């Protein structure tokens, strides 16, 4: 823009010179003879340039508008997705709340106890090199070393009152004991002093 403005000024000056020259030709300085050459007819601006300039401006405006629309659209999209994410987070939190405490050792142990499992006492091992048993060398006793259900002592508010998976009648608080009669009928496992029992069939 500024370049064409300067060019216009230069042309104006040149035409002034021409006018002055015609009024007082004697004073016309020799050295400035070249200036008179400028007295050419004004160049007509090419239409193509104008079209390009206008088209360019329109194109820029168009692209900018397009970009603006796209980003605004994205902003709404982002808002929707954020809302979705929030909902999913709520769901996740709700699910986490539901399962919290279910994997705690006292709850697992109470479930195991409700199934009739007992916590073992002294461990026995079989040495593979010579088959010798190390440890008490007797069968495990049916007595549990701790009473994880009937005397549950380690509380957990997260699963308080939650029915056991293995015994829906019982929970950590109520500590419904297992059917003792059923246990009494269960024979003690055979002693393994003479090695592991093998079936009689061959």
């Amino acid at each position, binding site marked *: 823009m500024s370049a064409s403005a300067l060019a216009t000024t230069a042309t104006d000056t040149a035409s002034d010179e021409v006018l002055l020259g015609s009024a007082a030709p004697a004073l016309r300085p020799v050295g400035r003879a070249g200036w008179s050459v400028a007295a050419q007819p004004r160049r007509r601006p090419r239409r193509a340039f104008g079209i390009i300039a206008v088209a360019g401006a329109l194109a820029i405006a168009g692209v900018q508008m397009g970009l603006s629309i796209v980003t605004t659209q994205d902003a709404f999209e982002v808002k929707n997705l954020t809302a979705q994410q929030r909902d999913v987070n709520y769901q996740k939190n709700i699910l986490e709340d539901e399962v919290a405490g279910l994997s*705690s*050792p006292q709850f697992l142990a109470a479930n195991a106890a409700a199934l009739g499992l007992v*916590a073992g006492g002294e461990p026995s*091992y079989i040495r593979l090199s010579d088959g010798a048993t190390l440890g008490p060398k007797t069968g495990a006793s049916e007595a549990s070393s701790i009473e994880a259900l009937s005397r549950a002592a*380690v509380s957990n508010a997260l699963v308080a009152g939650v029915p056991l998976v293995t015994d829906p009648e019982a929970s950590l608080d109520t500590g419904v004991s297992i059917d003792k009669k059923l246990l009494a009928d269960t024979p003690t496992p055979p002693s393994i002093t003479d090695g592991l029992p093998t079936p009689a069939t061959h």
Partner: protein
Amino acid sequence: MTTRATRSPRRRTVVALAVVLVVLVAFVARLIDIQVVNASQHVEDAFSKGMQKTTTLEGARGAIVDANGNPLATSMLRYNVVIDPHLAEQGMSLRDDTGAIVKDDAGDTVMVTWPEIAAEIAKVTEQSADEVRAIVDDAYAKNSGSRYQVIKRLVSTAEFRELDDLGIPFLSFEPVASRSYPDGAVAGNIIGFVGSDGEPLEGVEKLQDSCLEPTSGSIKYQRGANGVTIPGTAVEKPAVDGGTLKLTIDSDLQWYMQQLIAEETDRYQANWGGILVMEVATGKIRAIAETDSVDPNDPGASKSEDRGSRLLRTSFEPGSTFKPVTAATAIEQAGVTPGTTVTVPDRMVFKNGAVVNDSEKHATQDLTLNGGLVTSSNVAMSQFGAMVDPQTRYDYLKKFGAGEADGLGWSGEPERILRPADTWDNQTKYATTFGQAFTVTAVQVANAYQTFANGGVRMPASLVESCTKADGEVIHPKVAAPERVIKEETAKEVSLMLENVFAQGTLADDVALPGYRMAGKTGTAQISDGRGGYKKNLYFTSLVGFAPAEDPKYVVLTVFDEPKKQRMSSANRSVFKKAMAQVLTHYRIMPSGSETPLLPVTG
């Protein structure tokens, strides 16, 4: 050479330029005025018009995990249900499923009254409808312009969503950062808890707050219609979550010990009991169980004295469990061996007038140092102790932790007493040989046996493994350097004698685990009655030991405060045996495959 004619157009140019410049300068000045000089004023204006919004981004408090990474404490959100009583009392217009206001035949809006709404809310919050109604009615009665009243604090996400789905316009929800403890009371004595305002109040929650605490951030943005963020305006300073704190505790083992000590404390009718499991090679505490442990999910359910750790806040005179320290001192400083003999009556008056009794009457006999420990004779240990000057014995007691801090830096650590040797009176000179006249904590007793089991090198006791910051940086807590307390040879001799205590002592049959060699010692400490004497017939009993004795892996300490069914340390036998059996099973430690070499008891 310029003429008037040529100057005139130039002047026009100059003038035009000058005008442009003046305008430009004016704009720049105004710009600086807006952007710099009065910037904060304009930002405030924008805020007040609701165009710009700053939201605080809350980081999550770090998790606490056990030695295997199982979560013991996690962060979550709870919600306070807040109502606007002023609007609530006016009721709300009934809307159909599409959200349109329902009108009756006369064209009037159908209203839902406040009592009806209260009933809806109460159904979700599990309060009675009257209760909810009263909360709001009271607030309204006090101030009819009241716009804020909490109906229920800390409801779960599920309840919050249900309430939100009711579509009550004057109900709002404040998120509150909250804690969940998946394992409940497991290690509750150590973890501690936070208050309803999120302030850490007890245990490692409080002690390690600098690790767990999050740093909140903020997001600043301009809003368009419907609260949509105007693109490109958001400036975010992200929140930094708290670090993950890893404890040395093994939660499965911890649970077993808590269940066990609860049953046994009940069985022996003690005031309280405790079990401590320490790893020999590292000094790391794998379980620290006691009765009664708080459930951090609901600290209000516990009595105030049950909400912290008793075991870490109790110091006691150790009694016989510190006799091996006397033995180690005599071996190193008086040239005594496990076979060195002294003549032991059941009551002895020393030259300086001090009188020492054994706990049971017996005929005068010649006991070896080993025999002194096996029979737990005060008279024998007094004589072996007296072979070393008090100052040296004081130094040994101090090296074994008496009178010192236990290194855990726990809050409310008890006072520990060990008076300077030059202030020991005649009785104290002998009493210190069998664990009286100074106090220690349970951790220090376990640490002393860890030292014997670890060839004489004490590893500092620790409860905290590491803190992993949100950026992944792992910080290990500073602990004291390992310290050689006694010579390796001395430690071996003392260990062997402690094995003989388990093999030849009165407790042998009750504590033996077939296949394993174990070493340890009982302690029946007298309890100060607070009037300068001791309580009659009430003791602080302990049994501490390690296994397998030929290559020790774990120290187990069990204590009871004033057991009443059996008053002496014999009360600790069954709990010790079960605890040790569980430790050996839990860590898959193989039986010894050898027998304890028996040392002579009498000379």
